[in-house]
């Protein structure tokens, strides 16, 4: 049974990538919900590993599956409460980035993470997020502007406020 699965090329690829996948999922669900994140990864990899015949890169499909499972999770629970509980982290600056990311709208957060954290190109990100490239780019741009705003204390909704001097 499990011996059989071990030998499938998909599950080997997924096994190799498991830490990256878990890293992405943990960042996606928020700082204190690591168990939820690991459960998402487990479900996603199990699904991909047993569907060897489907086309496409198994890794992208596993990331895509995590994204879909998380979207459903958020839809069902309303706004994820874990996001608010981000505890004290020794590294202030990075902790604040993590906190800012966790309050960012989900569509922007998942886009930014697929690209900036997991290192996928825009086309692959489009496949993972099930979005056209143009939407990937615009969400990415919004996410970065929002982070910039948070870092310089400018409210993200206030449009194109710029420091001129």
């Amino acid at each position, binding site marked *: 049974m499990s011996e059989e699965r071990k030998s499938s*090329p*998909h599950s*080997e*690829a997924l*096994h*190799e*990538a*498991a*830490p*990256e996948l*878990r*890293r992405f999922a*943990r*960042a996606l669900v928020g700082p204190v919900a*690591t168990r939820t994140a690991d459960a998402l990864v487990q479900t996603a990899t199990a699904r991909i590993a047993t569907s060897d015949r489907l086309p496409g*890169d*198994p*890794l992208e499909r596993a990331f895509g599956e995590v994204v879909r499972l998380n979207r459903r999770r958020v839809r069902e629970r309303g706004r994820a409460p874990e996001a608010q509980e981000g505890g004290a982290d020794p*590294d202030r*600056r*990075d*902790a604040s*980035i*993590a906190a800012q*990311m966790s309050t960012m709208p989900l569509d922007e957060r998942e886009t*930014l*993470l697929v*690209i*900036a*954290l997991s*290192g*996928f*190109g*825009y086309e*692959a990100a489009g496949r993972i997020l099930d979005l056209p490239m143009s939407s990937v*780019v615009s969400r*990415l*741009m919004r996410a*970065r502007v929002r*982070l*910039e705003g948070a870092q310089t204390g400018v409210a993200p909704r206030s449009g194109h406020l710029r420091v001129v001097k």
Partner: protein
Amino acid sequence: MNGASRVSEAELHAFVDGQLSDERALAVAVWLAEHPRDGMKVDGWRAQNDAIQRAFPTPARERMTLAFRAPESDAPLTMPATPAIEDYRARRRRRHTLSLAAAFAIGALVAGAMALGVRRVAVHSASTEPVFAEVATAADEFARRAVEAWQTYAQDPLHPVEVDASDPAGLAKWLRERTGLLRLPAIPEARLIGGRVLPAHGENAAFLLYRLASGEFVALLAEPGARNPGAFAGAGVSARAWSADGFDYALAGALPERRLESIAAGLGRPL
């Protein structure tokens, strides 16, 4: 002139993420040298990317890796290397190299623009040579240390190792507690002699000594890190380095390069 051709906001993002063709990336680098405001934006996004990378560390692998097995086990020694994961790694490497190349290009352009004028320098800065030289050094330095460790210990007639492999499980546990190395890698047709713990920039490295069926000694140095493939050769001793699962490995020995290469490949070094 092409250097001044308009660059869109989306292209600036694509530049940061390594998504532009080489020509377009160069054009953007020229643009940035002339438009410091955009340069600051780009730097800001890069800093964001770095902060995101730091804020979410890669979790440790919890299951044992398929690459290595306990010395007493009969399981075949295989490294899972599928096209998918190789593609994934190649993408990441390419992205990293491109952003380094781009960073180098910008640096060269800013400096050059003052002295010579942007147009002339753009051609010269297209060379990526210094980038590759820099990427190679950290791993090569690690490979050099493996050669040195081989020279110091493998040739010691009395005490080449601290703990011998008469009790493999005990040796494995001893090294695991000190270095975090989960399994003692096995080399086909070689006998594990034993191991040592060596200092490694504030951490501990595991030094494992093997004797090949043909009589030569090879040493495997393993320490936490991710410096990726490198090599070193000096005074008849060579080493090959690679990274897997949060560890750097370097295999050293006084062997022909091809032979060393094939043993390293058997241990999981990418070809």
